């Protein structure tokens, strides 16, 4: 090709460069607020008891939202703010220590150990029942790097659920609201559920599985997601789902608490082998090759569903840990059922876990 022709070719190329370029730019706009999602994280309809209260002066009630049963905003001087939330979850939500440490984490305090817990928590009776209370102040200025944060927390255990009352925000403002917080707790009444619990003899996931539209995973954001249902034994208590989980249970025995999680990911989530090795890594076991993984797993059938089931024993920071897991590949997503915890608790619940897998249904 002559030099001239080459030049023309280059000139044309430059001209064509202008076409087809997507120019990413930061934009800004003002839009009307979206209505909150219609599906609550934990159903507050049907069999949920009703909460009645008298809000102290200066507390401005906010929309309840998807998790909160009630919510208040409290403003102080200098634009300082505090937030009061009331939530309720089925079961005991992992126990007092886990819940207190969750709150401590929110204000960047180190977790407590079991022995220190009774020193921090005190008990008090109010008209609505027997409450546990805690008062925590951050040891660093965590609000905008300038102000300390404080949490006044209270929880009320009922046979099937736990109510949480949390006043959090600027430390000085929360301190000033302490008596208002106690007045609020005194004013509470909780009316009985209108409908009795499911006659199934177990906890179905019907009230929690539909709530996973809260951006838990890609599986429920696109078309093609499945509705997967199960029936858990009554001895397992349901826990809040968190951001990722489709189902979450706490499994107790003398050996301690084990955790049962149900999550799903779009597609094959990296494949069965990769996920089995991921599980092995969680209990500090070495990765295996495909043949060894296949030998370490078994397949159990439930109708048309095929679960790849493994039972591994390893260790974690909390001691000897056993993991029984099942992977259920569906056509465009994969479900993971995992029971993990102290050796004895998991062994005692192995049969219950296998029976639980038999209750899984996909629609």
């Amino acid at each position, binding site marked *: 090709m*002559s030099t*001239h*022709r080459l030049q*023309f*070719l280059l000139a*044309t*190329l430059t001209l*064509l*460069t202008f*076409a*087809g370029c*997507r120019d*990413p*730019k*930061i*934009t*800004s*706009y*003002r*839009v*009307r*607020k979206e209505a909150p999602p*219609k599906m609550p994280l934990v159903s507050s309809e049907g069999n949920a008891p009703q909460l009645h209260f008298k809000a102290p002066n200066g507390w401005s009630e906010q929309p309840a939202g998807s998790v909160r049963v009630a919510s208040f905003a409290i403003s102080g001087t200098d*634009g300082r703010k505090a937030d009061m939330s009331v939530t309720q979850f089925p079961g005991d939500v992992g126990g007092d220590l886990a819940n207190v440490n969750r709150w401590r*984490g929110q204000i960047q305090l180190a977790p407590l150990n079991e022995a220190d817990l009774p020193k921090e928590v005190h008990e008090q009776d109010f008209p609505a029942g027997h409450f546990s209370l805690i008062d925590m102040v951050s040891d660093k200025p965590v*609000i*905008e*790097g300038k102000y300390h944060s404080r949490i006044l927390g209270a929880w009320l255990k009922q046979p099937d659920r736990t109510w949480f009352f949390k006043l959090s925000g600027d430390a000085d403002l929360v301190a000033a609201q302490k008596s208002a917080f106690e007045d609020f707790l005194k004013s509470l009444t909780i009316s009985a559920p209108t409908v009795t619990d499911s006659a199934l003899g177990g906890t179905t996931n019907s009230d929690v599985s539909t709530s996973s539209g*809260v*951006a*838990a*995973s*890609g599986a*429920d*954001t*696109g*078309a*093609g*997601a*499945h*509705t997967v249902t199960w029936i858990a034994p009554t001895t397992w208590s349901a826990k809040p789902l*968190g*951001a*990722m989980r489709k189902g979450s249970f706490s499994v107790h025995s003398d050996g301690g608490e084990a*955790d049962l999680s149900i999550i799903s*990911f*779009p*597609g094959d*989530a*990296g494949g069965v082998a990769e996920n089995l090795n991921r599980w092995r*890594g*969680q*209990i*500090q076991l070495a990765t295996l090759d495909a043949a060894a993984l296949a030998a370490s797993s078994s397949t159990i059938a439930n109708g048309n569903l095929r679960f790849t089931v493994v039972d591994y024993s390893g260790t*974690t*920071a909390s001691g000897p840990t056993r993991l029984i897991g099942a992977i259920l590949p569906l*056509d*465009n997503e994969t479900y993971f059922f995992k029971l*993990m915890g102290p050796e004895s608790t998991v062994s005692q619940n192995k049969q219950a876990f296998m029976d639980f897998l038999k209750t899984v249904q996909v*629609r």
Partner: protein
Amino acid sequence: MRNVIKSFVEFFVSLKLTVVLLALSALMVFFATLDQTQLGVWGIQHKWFQSLIVLQNIKGLPIPIFPGGYFLGGLLLINLVSAHIYRFKLSWKKSGIFITHAGLIVLLVGELLSGVVQRESTMKLDEGDTKNYSESTHYNELAIIDATDPEFDNVVAIPDALLTNDASLQYAKLPFRVVVKAFYPNAFLQMRNQVPNAPDSLATMGVGTQVVATPMPLTYKENEANEPAAFIELIGREGPLGTYLVSTQLRPQSFELEGKKWQLVFRPERYYTHYTVTLEKFSHDRYAGTDIAKNFSSKVRLQTDDGHTDREVLIYMNNPLRFDGLTYYQASFDPSNEHNTVLQVVKNPSWILPYVACAMLFTGLIIQFGISLIAFASKRRRQNAHA
């Protein structure tokens, strides 16, 4: 100078160029089809057809391996137009060829315009839901929302293309700088308590402190989605405000600054309209005993903000709603939710051009064959008359 112009003209009007370009185009379609097994339809469209040069990552380096669709199509267009100007003389005898070629030009221009201006998004609605935006199927954005006003949100949207590692983004409406500490185009999120040996999180605030984000290779499979994640540090006037993990798998995270409520959310890029679409009813039938859709339709209510339009529209297969430059197709539904519809929302101002081009091609060919047929028939008649 004259030589220059001459070689310019000769290069662009040559029939050899046409043949070479057509041969390369055929090869491009062949290679792109092979590549589709790796990248999926959307991936190859961008890599092979809507590009000037096809770049292949070889050991981390983008190496040009083939001319792209815009390059070949663009040159074909220039070749066709210049050959017309240079060679063809307008006469009745050649009018069919002229119209056919004009149709080809319209087709090529239409394809170029579609590639540049077409935008595809989806709108997912549950019955009773109202939305004034659709969401991109391929692009995401980091939305930083000033949610202080009880009725309105002031949104600053940063496209994911700008969220490159170590990028520092300043925007006049934000009282802080956004620094990207790490960006993962696809990531797998797990709760920290499930991964005992995980490294410390880069996040210091929000839910990210309890989540482990593991980078994953990009997926191009039809039924899988990439779920990007990023660690974003906000730096205010008086220093760092904290590092958050943002991901399309996480809910909005809130914080307060200088008396204002802010929200951080990584979500599909949104395209707002000045009207709302409300799903009133979604209905669908399946073929008996299967999950295969027989027909499905969405009854929606369309309302403009100025109140001039307020009507009900039934959208079903092959009967899209066209309004204000956007076309709403009934695309899909959520099999787990009988009351949810997925509409595909397409913006393509040049959608009419392929239809015009086809009509021109058809007319041109009819005219050209007609002229040949008449010429042939009259010649035959003359021969018969002589005989």
